């Protein structure tokens, strides 16, 4: 069984999940850092402070949007990109490479926050050629397998 994701490990989990993430920070509802990964301990508080400022600036400027206050932010700058996502309880911000794909990174942020809040483990695929990889033993078994396993399980 997969270990339960703790707030302290959440930033590290995001860095593991996405190769484009260089550093990440998780803030709690009060804006206090709950976990940092990718920067030295001395700089972790500053990174958390900046992440908090990011959403504060968003709230000041875009509070009155028709769809409600923004939940996610993406800022592309010259030397990198910053992505942040929040739920009522947590805010997760990541500094990524400039080449990172926005949609994938925002999805990763949501997935990690989902795992932290609801304990839903993120499903990761393993290459079939990897030794010991779980999967169908034969081509016939692979052909009979549903391409969307969740749908197959629901039907049973």
């Amino acid at each position, binding site marked *: 069984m997969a270990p339960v994701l703790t707030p302290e490990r959440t930033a590290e989990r995001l860095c593991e999940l996405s190769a484009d993430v260089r550093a990440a920070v998780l803030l709690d509802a009060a804006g206090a850092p709950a976990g940092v990964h990718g920067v030295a301990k001395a700089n972790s508080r500053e990174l958390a402070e900046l992440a908090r400022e990011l959403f504060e600036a968003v709230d000041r400027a875009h509070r009155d949007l028709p*769809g409600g206050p923004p939940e996610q932010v993406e800022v592309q700058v010259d030397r990198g990109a910053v992505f942040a996502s929040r739920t009522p309880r947590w805010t997760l911000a990541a500094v990524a490479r400039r080449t990172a794909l926005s949609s994938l990174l925002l999805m990763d942020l949501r997935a990690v926050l989902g795992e932290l809040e609801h304990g839903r483990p993120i499903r990761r695929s393993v290459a079939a050629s990897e030794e010991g990889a779980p999967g169908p033993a034969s081509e016939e078994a692979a052909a009979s397998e549903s391409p969307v396993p969740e749908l197959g399980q629901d039907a049973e």
Partner: protein
Amino acid sequence: MKEKRKGPIGRAADLAEGFAATMRRMQREREPRLLVYDETGYARLVQPNGRGYQNLVETAERMVGLVEDAEAEGRPLRRVRGDAEAAGEPRRARSRRDAFAEEEDA
């Protein structure tokens, strides 16, 4: 429809146009870009003259700078030529020609 230019001048003009387009694209890609998403995932592009644009871009730049500093600290420093000699380490040959010359000198 754009008429295709023929001849060497036309080809040179096409090349120059392609180059200019590439430069414009690279410049556009380097420009800061800011998007906010609502809870349904609907994205809004914030224009450079939009509210909070400058503040948000500055904050993001500081975050990226902080991470760059951390990455630079983690990376071993590049040694420049002369450091080894200053530290009293024996000078290493930098090429086959240098090695041959050192053998000759010896």
